[in-house]
Every structure is written in structure tokens, then in C-alpha cells.
């Protein structure tokens, strides 16, 4: 039997490491149902140890086979490794036949009381239904059983549950009081009585236990959330107040006010909408470069990145550096208040399997004649064109006086 997975609220997403390993039936490396493999993985022992264990138990009165069957029925295969349903069905039928055979073989020694056959039929029937049910149906049943266990004593399921529990406890008592006979039979009946009583108690007190666990979980989640909120609020208030103070002091310098407002806005965005891009990626480095230039030169950079979730290597790093240089040039020389930057990583059109990286830095400023990039304009010649050519990329500059400038950077990545 596997313990049911802990409810998610006990383990908020912030602490994924707390989840115990789940017990599954193995799909890979299995001989039959994958039970032994799965158990071995869960217990971290050799699979042969488990197999031999089952085998020995099977020789001693068929217990091993029953156990194996029980595990097989109850355990699921890992959700990420679906198994072919046909194979599973065939295996199940085979298992049923073997199980029935074992039972019949032991028919003489089994306690064939009036209750045995119906109970066995019920177990097998239940097993069949459980096996055939789809995952969603099983989940629904689990939820249903949980909710009926948690239902209060005053609605119908709750009242029913309570009645059933009380009946079971009374029945257990009656068993014990009225039992006659001695020896093994008495022990058996006593055991049954105890089990029945425990079941009854569980049904009666179920809601209370469930509520206790849920409240603990909820309380903990709430506490974590509050701490997080307080943390964010404190940080935000602090930096917003600082910025407002600075803006008041710089009220006569519109450029400085704009710069402060922009960087504060950026910080708020990052806080509110989460960091939009994973760190160390092409998109993130470009955004960082753009932010820095916005602050340094007091301009706005409209940055749009498509497909930029790729970690940066030496070559992409050179591309970002060149793009940054192009942005600086636009900020310094174009005489504009905003620059458009578009970057894209997409499958290249030339050969399959190649990713093409492109960055376009565009301004609508004064422009220049690209044929006469003066010798001393190291910015363009060295930092942009040369830098890309060293990394087997290319840079083209489209510009004419009065119509603005667009720098296009391209690079093929394997």
C-alpha cells in the first residue's frame, strides 16, 4: 500500500524538496507487472531481493502472489511513462486466472465461511473496476471519498457515515461479547472485531482528523504568504518613497525626472509581474543592456524579443554587446527620445537545424551616410561590424540623412 500523496497545500510550491518519493509500478525494466521493480526503486534495494522475497512468500501458502496482486492493483504507473493499455489488460487477465487458480488450489485450507465467497468476489470486482477506470475517474472517486469523509454530521453523507461508524463499533463490541469457542477461531474473530471497531472509529472521527491536517496546512500557507507580502510591500514602499523624494529635488530637470520615473517603473514591473525572463538568457541580457542605456542616456528603448529563452554563449554574448553598442550610438548621436529594438531567435531559413539570431536597432533620428563612417568612429567599425565578423556574423547599417538609422545584426547558431 502506498501512502496517498500529501495534499499540495501542505507543500507550497516554494518548497518542492519536501515531497517524499512516490511509490509507482515501474514501466522500464519490468518482468511482469513492474511491482518488484517499483518497490526496489522505492526502498532503494536490489530488485532481485524483492523478487526473491515475493517468490518465497508465494511458496508459503500463496501469500506472495496475493501480495503481488494487491500491489499491482493499487499502485499506479508513473504519470510520465504511460503504458500500453492492451498489454496491461492482457497481464491483468493472466493475473486474475493465476489468482483464481491459487485460491482454488488452497480451497481446502481456506476458511470457507458464508462470507468468504462474496468478499472475494467484491474484492476482485472492485479491483477490475479500479483497474479499468481512467485516471480522471479515479481522482474523482478519491475526492468523493475524501469529501464524504469530511462531510459534517448534519448533511446526508455525513449522517450516513456517522451511522455506519457507530454500527461498526457496536458490531465489533457485539462480536467480542458474544464470541464462543476457543483457540485459533477465537483469535480470528477477535481480530476481525478489532478491525471492525477501528474502522468504525476512523469513520466517526475522520472529519476531525482531516480538518486538523487541513487547518495546519492552510495556516502555514497563509503565514508564508503574509511574510512574502510584507517583504514586497516594505521593499516597494521604500524604493518608491526614495524615488519620489529624488523627483521632488530634481523637479527642474525634466530629463532627470524622466530617468528616475523610468527606472522606478521598471523595478515595479519586475516586482509585480514577476521577472519575465529567466536569468542568463539572451532576452534577459538584452533587457539589461537596454535598461542601462535608458538610465544613462535618458531615452526610452522599446524592446521586443521573440524566442529569446536561450542561454548565452560566447557568440550570443558578442551579439548582445554589438546590439548594446548600436543602442548607445542611437542614444548619443541620433537626437531622439526613443529607440526601437527588435530581437529574434528563430529557425533559420537557410538550413534545417540552424537557429538564426537577429537584432534590429532602429531610430528615427538625424541619420548619416554609412559610406563615410569616419576612421575615428570606432564604435561602428570595431564594436559592431568587427565584433560580429569575428564571430561569423554580419552587421548591415541602413541610414540616410534625415530618415534615421537601422542597424541589423545577424548570426547563425547551431
Amino acid at each position, binding site marked *: 500500500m502506498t501512502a496517498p500523496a500529501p495534499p499540495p497545500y501542505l507543500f507550497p510550491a516554494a518548497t518542492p524538496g519536501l515531497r517524499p518519493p512516490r511509490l509507482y509500478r515501474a514501466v522500464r525494466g519490468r518482468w511482469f507487472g513492474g511491482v518488484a521493480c517499483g518497490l526496489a526503486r522505492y526502498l532503494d534495494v536490489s530488485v532481485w531481493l524483492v523478487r526473491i522475497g515475493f517468490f518465497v512468500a508465494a511458496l508459503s501458502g500463496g501469500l506472495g502472489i496475493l501480495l503481488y496482486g494487491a500491489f499491482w492493483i493499487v499502485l499506479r504507473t508513473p504519470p510520465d511513462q504511460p503504458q500500453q493499455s492492451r498489454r496491461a489488460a492482457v497481464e491483468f487477465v493472466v493475473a486474475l486466472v493465476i489468482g483464481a487458480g491459487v485460491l482454488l488450489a488452497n480451497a481446502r485450507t481456506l476458511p470457507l465461511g458464508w462470507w468468504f465467497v462474496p468478499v472475494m468476489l467484491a474484492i476482485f470486482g472492485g479491483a477490475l473496476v479500479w483497474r479499468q477506470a481512467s485516471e480522471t475517474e479515479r481522482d474523482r472517486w478519491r475526492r468523493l471519498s475524501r469529501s464524504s469523509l469530511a462531510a459534517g454530521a448534519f448533511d446526508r453523507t455525513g449522517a450516513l457515515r456517522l451511522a455506519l461508524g457507530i454500527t461498526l463499533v457496536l458490531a465489533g463490541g457485539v462480536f467480542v461479547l458474544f464470541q464462543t469457542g476457543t483457540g485459533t477461531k477465537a483469535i480470528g474473530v477477535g481480530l476481525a472485531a478489532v478491525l471492525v471497531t477501528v474502522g468504525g472509529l476512523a469513520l466517526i472521527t475522520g472529519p476531525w482528523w482531516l480538518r486538523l491536517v487541513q487547518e495546519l496546512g492552510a495556516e502555514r500557507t497563509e503565514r508564508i504568504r503574509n511574510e512574502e507580502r510584507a517583504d514586497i510591500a516594505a521593499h516597494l514602499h521604500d524604493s518608491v518613497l526614495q524615488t519620489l523624494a529624488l523627483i521632488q529635488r530634481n523637479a527642474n530637470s525634466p530629463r532627470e525626472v524622466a530617468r528616475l520615473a523610468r527606472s522606478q517603473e521598471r523595478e515595479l514591473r519586475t516586482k509585480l509581474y514577476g521577472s519575465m525572463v529567466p536569468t542568463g538568457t539572451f532576452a534577459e541580457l538584452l533587457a539589461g543592456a537596454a535598461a542601462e542605456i535608458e538610465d544613462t542616456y535618458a531615452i526610452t528603448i522599446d524592446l521586443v*524579443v521573440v*524566442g529569446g*529563452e536561450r542561454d548565452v554563449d560566447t557568440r550570443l554574448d558578442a551579439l548582445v554587446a554589438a546590439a548594446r553598442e548600436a543602442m548607445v550610438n542611437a542614444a548619443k548621436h541620433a537626437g531622439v527620445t526613443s529607440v526601437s529594438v527588435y530581437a529574434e531567435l528563430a529557425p533559420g531559413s537557410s538550413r534545417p537545424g540552424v537557429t538564426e539570431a537577429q537584432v534590429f536597432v532602429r531610430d*528615427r533620428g538625424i541619420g548619416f551616410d554609412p559610406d563615410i563612417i569616419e576612421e575615428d568612429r570606432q564604435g561602428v567599425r570595431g564594436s559592431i561590424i568587427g565584433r560580429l565578423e569575428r564571430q561569423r556574423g554580419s552587421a548591415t547599417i541602413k541610414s540616410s540623412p534625415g530618415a534615421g538609422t*537601422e542597424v541589423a545584426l545577424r548570426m547563425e547558431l547551431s
Partner: protein
Amino acid sequence: MTEQNAPTAAEPAGSGPSVVLVDDHAMFRSGVKAEIGQSVRIVGEAATVAEAVTVIGHLKPDVVLLDVHLPDGGGPAVVAAVLPQHPDVRFLALSVSDAAEDVISVIRSGARGYVTKTISGADLTDAIRRVAEGDVVFSPRLAGFVLDAFRDADTGPTPSVDPELDQLTPREQEVLRLLARGYSYREIGAELFISIKTVETHASNVLRKLQLSSRHQLTRWAADRRLV
């Protein structure tokens, strides 16, 4: 938006398309009014979804400037409530949020364009005019989102009524890329050797695909990959 054709000199108030402002921040509404009140007719304002539905139904403006985030349901709820009754009212979404899913969801609900709140007054006026004339408005950011949403169109089975809707033609992609690079329609036309009218057609086809496509990615993509 960076439109190259500078707006004409401010016309007297009372001309231009009629506009209703829907935003829950009074400060932002008055800011917008001060900035563009000269070049368009601002006929009404609303701060909640319920208010907006009433005001728009009553005034039937040409264009509704719509904040994506509203206290009782957000921009998409307004569009969904108004459009069936008043198909002639056009919506232009404005947002401080850059979250892709917000932007895509308001467009999918029926808005005809999206601009960020940091847009200049002149560009905003221009965008309102174009929406009023039946055109669509792709800010570079929206163009980027759409390109991203339609990327790798062949990943996984996408059961769709109309596979035509599930991918962009190469031409549409080119137009979107140029929009994302900050080009105006005129510049795109010059770049691709097509008329401005054709550029407009491509843009509105893209918007239609975005609204009608049932592609799994379009409803899920933003959660999977966030982007700048």
C-alpha cells in the same frame, strides 16, 4: 507606436472620433483627457466593467479606450458584454501590464489593437483614428507577442476546425516582424513593395487569425514561455 507621419495641427475640440475612456484610475483618465481631448471627442468615462457596459451602450462611441485590468472582470469582460449588442463599437486596449496573456486575451475577446500606457499623446490620437476607421493597431510589443504565439506552428497535434487559422503566412510574418521593428505601414509597404492597403489587409488578417484560432498554444503559450 512610432508613427512617422506627424499628426496634423490640433483640431478644435468636438471633432474627430467619439471616445469613451474605461480605466479604474481617475488620475490616468484625466491625464489622457488633457493630452488628447483636443484632437478627439471624449464623450464619457467609466471605472468598472458594469459602468463601462452601461455608458458604452448609452453613448455608442466610435472607439472605447479600454484598460486591460479592471476591478470587476477586466477588459475582456467589457468587450464580451458590449460587442454582441453594438458590433460597430471598436475597442483599443491600453495597459500598463506587459504580461503576454493579458494582452492576447483582450485581443482575442475582440479588441482591435493594443498600445502601452507610456504611448505619447500624438501616437495615441493616431491609433484611435485608425481604429475608428476600421484599421487595426499593432504596437511593436503586440506584434512580438503574436509572432511568439504563432511560433513553431507544427508542434503537437492541434485539433482545429480550420487549420488555415492556425498559422501565419510567410507574408504575414514579414509584416509582423517589420511592425515589431517599429516600422509604419508606409515603410512596410516600401520595404515589401506592396501598397499600404495590402499591409492593412495583412494586419487585419493576422488579428482575425488571432481571434479565431483555436490553437492550443494561443491559450496556453503565455504561461509556458514568458518573454520581454
